[in-house]
């Protein structure tokens, strides 16, 4: 249960004058939900981009199941078993919802027919069966979020990196999404970047907090909620 699946060791990334990620270290245990929070621009999405190979790290190491994965391209990392979603959902707009899922099933299927058989199953998980023939571009925000999650699930990842899947959802929809994520954790390891506190406190086993590219806190949800450093990062220092 407590095997460390993903280890991020002291990684840094600089974009010109901006230190987007500064010596960040953390690990994710098997079947755990790790929450990552932090104010806007704290480097949460950058962290995902670094782990999944969209950016290369300047220094440090990222290890997945005992194997270095920094320096690999995104498609290779996905093949290893780590899949991410994008903060702004990126459906393949010109393709139908079913084809979006099919494309995601394909890289890990031996035959196209094998992938095709899985499409319905994935559509059902994310509740998009009725939209199977709609174009990706014609979906509502909620549907796009669902499709984004569906595409990620279709790759059958062991580690799922979810980048703000709740943003733009109504409270009832959020509850639905939370149930789905809790269901998924039975078979997967999940890292969640999220802005909505109610969500992150509810679903995370552990939380790390980023601010200005640095990790400023790590702990159980309860500890994080009471941590003065975290409160300061979010609300600023009082004017005494």
């Amino acid at each position, binding site marked *: 249960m407590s095997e460390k699946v993903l280890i991020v060791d002291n990684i840094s990334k600089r974009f010109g004058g901006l230190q987007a990620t500064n010596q960040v270290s953390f690990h994710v245990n098997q079947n755990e939900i790790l929450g990552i929070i932090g104010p806007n621009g704290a480097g949460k999405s950058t962290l995902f981009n670094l782990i*999944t190979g*969209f950016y290369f790290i300047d220094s440090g190491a990222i290890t997945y199941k005992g194997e270095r994965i920094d320096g690999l*391209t*995104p*498609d290779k990392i*996905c*093949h290893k078993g780590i*899949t*991410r979603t*994008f903060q702004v959902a*990126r*459906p*393949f*707009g*010109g*393709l139908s919802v*079913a*084809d979006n899922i*099919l*494309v*995601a099933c*394909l*890289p*890990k299927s031996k035959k*196209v027919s094998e992938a*095709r058989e899985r*499409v319905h199953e994935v559509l059902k998980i994310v509740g998009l069966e009725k939209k199977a023939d709609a174009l*990706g571009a014609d979906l509502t925000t909620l549907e796009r979020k669902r499709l984004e999650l569906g*595409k*990620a699930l*279709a*790759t059958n990842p062991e580690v799922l990196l979810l980048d703000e899947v709740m943003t733009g959802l109504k409270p009832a929809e959020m509850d639905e999404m939370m149930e789905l994520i809790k269901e998924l954790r039975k078979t997967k390891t999940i890292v969640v970047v999220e802005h909505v506190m109610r969500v992150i406190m509810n679903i995370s086993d552990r939380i790390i907090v980023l601010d200005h590219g640095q990790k400023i806190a790590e702990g159980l949800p309860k500890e994080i909620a009471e941590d003065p450093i975290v409160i300061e990062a979010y609300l600023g220092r009082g004017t005494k």
Partner: protein
Amino acid sequence: MKPDKTPLILGILAVALALVYFLPLQIYVRHILILTLLYAFLGTGWNLMCGYAGRLSLGHSAFVAVGAYTSLLLFANFGITPWIGMLAGGVFAVIVMLLIAYPSFRFGVKGPYFTLGSIALAEIVHNLLIYFREYTGGSLGMSLPYQPTSLALFQFDGKEPYYIIILVFWLAAVFLTWKMERTRYYLEAIREDDDAAAALGISVNKNLIIAACISAFLVAIGGTFYVQYYRYIDPYSIAGFTLSLNIALVVVIGGSGTILGPTIGSFLIIPITEILRMSLGASMPGLHLFLYGILLILCIIFLPKGITSIPGIMRAKKAKKDNQLNQGAEGVL
């Protein structure tokens, strides 16, 4: 999931076109059919990279020219049969394609920049053909040394054998496109959003390069057919912008990124252009181009996704209508 009707349609089309061979057609009609199938073949090759993967090239005449000149030069200078010259031309075209495609894809050149690059490539090939006049005949062009009918040398006195050959080429290209189902899906995903495709485990560069190479190879083979059929080529007609544009238009009008779009586009555009030119070319020169332009404008306005999108549009309209009816019924109840 709807069953894939493509093999059925393709089979019927192929049999019908094969039967046309036996009809006692006028030479001119047969010429139009050969030309139509040639454009359908070139368009099918173009479609892989430019339709499915969305890397729009307006310089594919470069590869037609590479194919045509390679097989012609090998035949004229060394007596190598154009059948082998055709394969050599295909390989050479793939090499030329790799020179431009690898750096472009590696550094993410796409959209208008990629298109401009492709135009520049065709322009370079065009100018090289003129520059090396001792070998290529420069802008005067080059004739195919005449041989009596010989299958081994890819030369025939009548038009019928050319019809069969281009029919087989076309069928092979369309069949290949159909068989590449997985790659087609990957290319479509890459066209829509390459980062999102990579995040799902699709190797973006590898798939783009596969598409580009097959595209160049097929189009180069079309080049060899061109020179064997017309027996004469010059840089302007075979490496010029007009040919590149025509290949692209045929596909765009028919439906880019679909298996049969290039064929449908070709069967609409090429006969109309030829018939207009034949009937109006002498009496009112230029009018056929004017009408052709109007046709294009109408297609782009009303069918931006090509003729193959019509069934989809009809379905969407019907669904919308049904939806409204349902809502109306609910309102009454």
